[in-house]
């Protein structure tokens, strides 16, 4: 049913329909509306979940880890500083192959303190073994949660998943969202069937330590699961498409890329602005297209290679910077295109919530086509002086 909804509330409703048994989350801007909405649902018996008001994000994810190991579907949400505090637990969850699903309402990391959007937080955990999906709009943010649970809990995968969507830009804006019903979600997402769990009737030990003789094989096993996700995510997306008519079967999404000279690569809400900018540029004859990454982990290498095969210039928009190196998306796109002669230009953009307009996208394209890349876009010289 189509409703005008605030992103956070749409996500909270979606999570409610996923029937988590345990929710443990610590409030942090701009995630607060999600956890408040879920608390309200619990207080009014609209969801049947134990809601643990933990004392920190570290405890939030730890509680989710425990509840998942005990056999419950769980949920948490965080951002920025909170996610950074969870760093250790994130690696632990993935290593223990627990299918926790967590919303990341993308926000910049301090210092300096910032409550505004960029994607540094989730990207900084790209090594952790969590699946990472990025939403362009509130509809996608909502739907990706159903997809994330289904994929994470698949016994071929058994990895935790981030569903990332931009803080304030998506979480606090109102957009039309077609909410599924409980029955529809139940049809797509079956009850959680743990692969193994803490159970006195069949005791096992979780979280042994691994000596050098064993550690590498466990890490390799996670990578193999990541590899399988390259097919399991599209598979689940296709089922969703057949059931509900919205297509998430691609690890990437192409927009007007077929005959493009210049391709823009981006993730998240910026893609909306990029699409509008592309339409304007196309109207005056410029052949520009967008390669939107929906999945960042696993990184869609084959899809990127295939989509960018025919372009002459690639401009990557990175809402993050690996300080001392480049933006994470550009580095991975370059790796995917290794061996081709296609120039890939990295544009660090919109850090800490700095606004991006259509004219900025046009300027980025112009820079890339003039061979002026690997730069911070839009630095304010007067501030630097």
């Amino acid at each position: 049913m189509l409703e005008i909804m605030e992103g956070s509330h749409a996500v909270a409703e979606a999570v409610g329909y996923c029937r988590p048994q345990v929710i443990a989350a610590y409030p942090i801007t701009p995630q607060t509306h999600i956890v408040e909405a879920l608390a309200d649902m619990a207080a009014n018996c609209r969801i049947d979940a134990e809601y643990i008001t933990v004392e920190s994000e570290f405890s939030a994810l730890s509680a989710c880890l425990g509840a998942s190991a005990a056999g419950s579907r769980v949920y948490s949400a965080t951002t920025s500083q909170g996610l950074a505090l969870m760093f250790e637990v994130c690696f632990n969850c993935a290593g223990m192959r627990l299918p926790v699903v967590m919303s990341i309402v993308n926000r910049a990391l301090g210092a300096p303190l910032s409550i505004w959007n960029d994607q540094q937080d989730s990207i900084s955990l790209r090594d952790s073994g969590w699946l990472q999906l990025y939403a362009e709009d509130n509809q996608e943010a909502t739907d990706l949660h159903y997809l994330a649970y289904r994929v994470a809990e698949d016994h071929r995968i058994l990895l935790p998943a981030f569903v990332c969507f931009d803080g304030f830009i998506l979480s606090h804006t109102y957009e039309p969202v077609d909410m599924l019903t409980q029955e529809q979600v139940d049809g797509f997402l079956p009850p959680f069937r743990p692969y193994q769990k803490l159970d006195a009737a069949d005791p096992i030990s979780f979280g042994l330590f691994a000596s050098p003789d064993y550690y590498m094989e466990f890490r390799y096993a996670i990578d193999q699961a990541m590899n399988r996700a390259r097919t399991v995510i599209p598979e689940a997306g296709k089922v969703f498409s057949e059931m509900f008519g919205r297509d998430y079967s691609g690890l990437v999404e192409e927009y007007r890329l077929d005959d493009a000279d210049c391709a823009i690569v981006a993730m998240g809400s910026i893609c909306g602005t990029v699409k509008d900018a592309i339409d304007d540029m196309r109207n005056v004859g410029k052949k520009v297209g967008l390669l939107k990454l929906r999945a960042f982990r696993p990184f869609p290498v084959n899809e990127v290679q295939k989509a960018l095969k025919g372009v002459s210039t690639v401009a990557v928009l990175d809402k993050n910077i690996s300080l001392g190196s480049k933006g994470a998306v550009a580095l991975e796109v370059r790796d995917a295109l290794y061996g081709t002669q296609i120039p890939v230009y990295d544009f660090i953009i919109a850090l800490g919530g700095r606004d991006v307009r259509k004219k900025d996208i046009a300027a980025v394209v112009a820079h890339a086509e003039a061979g002026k890349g690997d730069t911070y876009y839009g630095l304010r010289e007067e501030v630097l002086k």
Partner: protein
Amino acid sequence: MAIGLGCTARPGKSRDNRTGSWRVFRPEFTAEKCTKCGMCKIICPEGCIAEDEEGLPVPDYDYCKGCGLCAEECSSEAIEMKKEEK
């Protein structure tokens, strides 16, 4: 051996590790002095003292590390630590 998903393991595997090989001294049990108080069995950190039908201690030397706690705590001096010849 199939790897335990997420580094898990089923019970029983610790018994593959025969810690009796650590031993330098070995506890010798004298049945005649034993009062069957059961204390040696309770305190053994390895849990390798069982009880027979008469209530007398039955040590499992596959796992006994020779720590000497049983001999030290036995109130009737029925256990003696002897250097083990290997």
